């Protein structure tokens, strides 16, 4: 697809059963793409925020936003891409920690300012938070050492307030 860029959508929805399936059903039913999706309640317990990352060209993104707005339980749809926003994702990486590599792993943990959150006989589990670029960087550095499995949260994001 031509210029299928990444778009981050921040969607406020009513915190009710079935709302997530309305959103995911909209994407599958209309053939839209979901790269990642995060949902959790906001400070208002009746409202949840869905942060959704999609890859699509501009006309499709317009259609996605309108379709989301049309869902009865959707309160507001913001597109963050194109404006100033902060974006974070967390990943847990279970990396093979053979004795000869431990020092190097810990050095990387230090450089990337992440944390070792679990130590097993042969593995470390590392928690990394950052934007897409940072996560990619540490993942590719750890790959040759041996990544057993990872769990990613998907992106969450908010507008930056004016300084």
């Amino acid at each position, binding site marked *: 697809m031509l210029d299928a860029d990444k778009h981050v959508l921040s969607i406020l929805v009513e915190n009710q059963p079935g709302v997530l399936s309305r959103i995911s059903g909209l994407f599958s039913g209309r053939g839209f793409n979901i790269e990642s999706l995060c949902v959790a309640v906001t400070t208002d317990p009746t409202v949840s925020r869905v942060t959704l990352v999609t890859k699509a060209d501009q006309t499709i993104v317009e259609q996605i936003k*309108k379709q989301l707005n049309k869902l*009865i339980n959707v309160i507001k749809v913001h597109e963050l891409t194109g404006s100033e926003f902060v974006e974070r994702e967390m990943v847990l990486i279970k990396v093979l920690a053979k004795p000869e590599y431990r020092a190097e792993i810990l050095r990387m943990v230090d450089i990337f300012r992440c944390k070792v959150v679990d130590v097993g006989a042969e593995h470390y589990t590392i928690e990394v938070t950052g934007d897409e670029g940072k996560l990619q960087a540490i993942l590719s550095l750890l790959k040759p050492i041996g990544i057993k499995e990872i769990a990613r949260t998907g992106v969450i994001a908010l507008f930056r307030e004016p300084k």
Partner: protein
Amino acid sequence: MELTGAQILIKMLKEEGVKNIFGYPGGVVIDIYDELMKSDIRHILVRHEQGAVHAADGYARATGGVGVCLVTSGPGATNTVTGIASAYMDSIPVVVFTGQVPVHLIGNDAFQEVDIVGITRPCTKHNFLVKSTEELAHTIKEAFHIARSGRPGPVLVDIPKNVSTARIKYKAPGPVKMRTYNPTYKPNKRQLQKVVDLIKVAEKPVIFAGGGVILSKAASALTKLAQRARIPVTTTLMGLGAFPGTDPLWLGMIGMHGTYRSNMSTAHCDLFLAIGVRFDDRVTGKTDTFASQAQIVHIDIDPTSIRKNIPVAVPVVGDCKCTLEELNEMLESVDLGDLDNRRKPWLDQIQAWKSTNPLAYHQEETIKPQYVVEKLYELTKGEAIITTEVGQNQMWAAQYYHFDKPNHFITSGGLGVMGFGLPAAIGAQIACPDRLVVDIAGDGSIQMNIQEMATAVQCNLPVKVVILNNGYLGMVRQWQQLFYDKRYCCTCMEHAPDFVKLAEAYGATGLRARKPEEVEEVLKKGLSTPGPVIMDFVVEKEECVYPMVPAGAPITEMLLV
């Protein structure tokens, strides 16, 4: 005041002004039926739940109001899905109440449990599972509000058995306030000014109206606009009746089976005013070449319709009626010049297209289906409410019956569901007991909901069914003829029932015509016979609907008679 859920439901229906419900009972809705019986709401017992939804759909379209259904859980609920999908595609306000197993059994694979809210999520405007009797009253209010406002559509309310039996202290719900739903009715003035400016300079304008005009009751505002600015009008299948089919500015229907002049005008116009439409592929054909010389204005209440398939120069989000009325008001003070002279070349061109390629067919020894529709139009003076099945019969009805008024043509446009016409006719007849209601049917489609003849007979509804009996699934056969080398695979309807005897078996009247000279007589007799009548017209077997634009081709590439 203490009320049960069932009593609350009936109370709310009365408050919504519901007078008729189409339904079919079952275990988990007996309590509701028990209350319904005590009220003065009329219940029409259909013979299949799909029929209930199509009937409610027909009722809604004939009245311009909301149609209501009540069915049981499980199979009763799943049987409604096709009807709901059709209403959804055509934006028809229908509220469907389904019974559900008691809340504590939900998720247990209980007897006759289905997740109907899950199943219908993609084909309803919205749906609800009511988890407690306390929520029932305001949920019903919201359901009706959502169904009828904005771009209308079907809403399903799933009511577990214990919710309808529980007795609670009833509190009247306040007015509907929804923070998430607030359709835009009023158009943006600046956008409208752009439309006015375009109308001022257009030399070859066309108005393209759809079902949205009928839904928003904007037909007279549309007619005013067309006549004021002298703009010829075409419509979609769903828009038939939004503009008088006998007006000199009428172009006929657009699209795959549109008239030659309508499709040509669309291709050559310089301003294309699209109002209450969604640019369905059966309308546009190949999108790149569609109205490609025109500035396109698109007025619709649903923003998702705009720029979905077709790029648009001036989008206007708003209700068709509000928007057209405002536009008409703005145009009052605008000088459009000497329209007689200005429009002459354009209208002459259109007239030439009309005379070179009018809608036509060749009369032969056999009955031509088009002739039956023409005769029907003549004999009913164009005043009948026409429902249709799907296929060639539907297209001939659209082409040869001319609609001067909205809410007179009731067809399954978006879903194109065979079996729609008879139950829809029943719904329309309930809505308009004094009107003549005719289902123009095919021999295949009519068999999909033929059981509703029993409903018509039981309720003494004088619906007339005109079967254009070609012995084929004609529209599919037509595609096989034109695009598959006449390989008529599985489209020949052998072993059709004798429709005359079938009518009689239901306790209705059955008539048949085999020759052209019998057509008028059978129609006259059938239309004047009280009660439901089936008229079986044995028509030319291999007649095709023309013009035809092959799927995906530009709409100017028409196969003609």
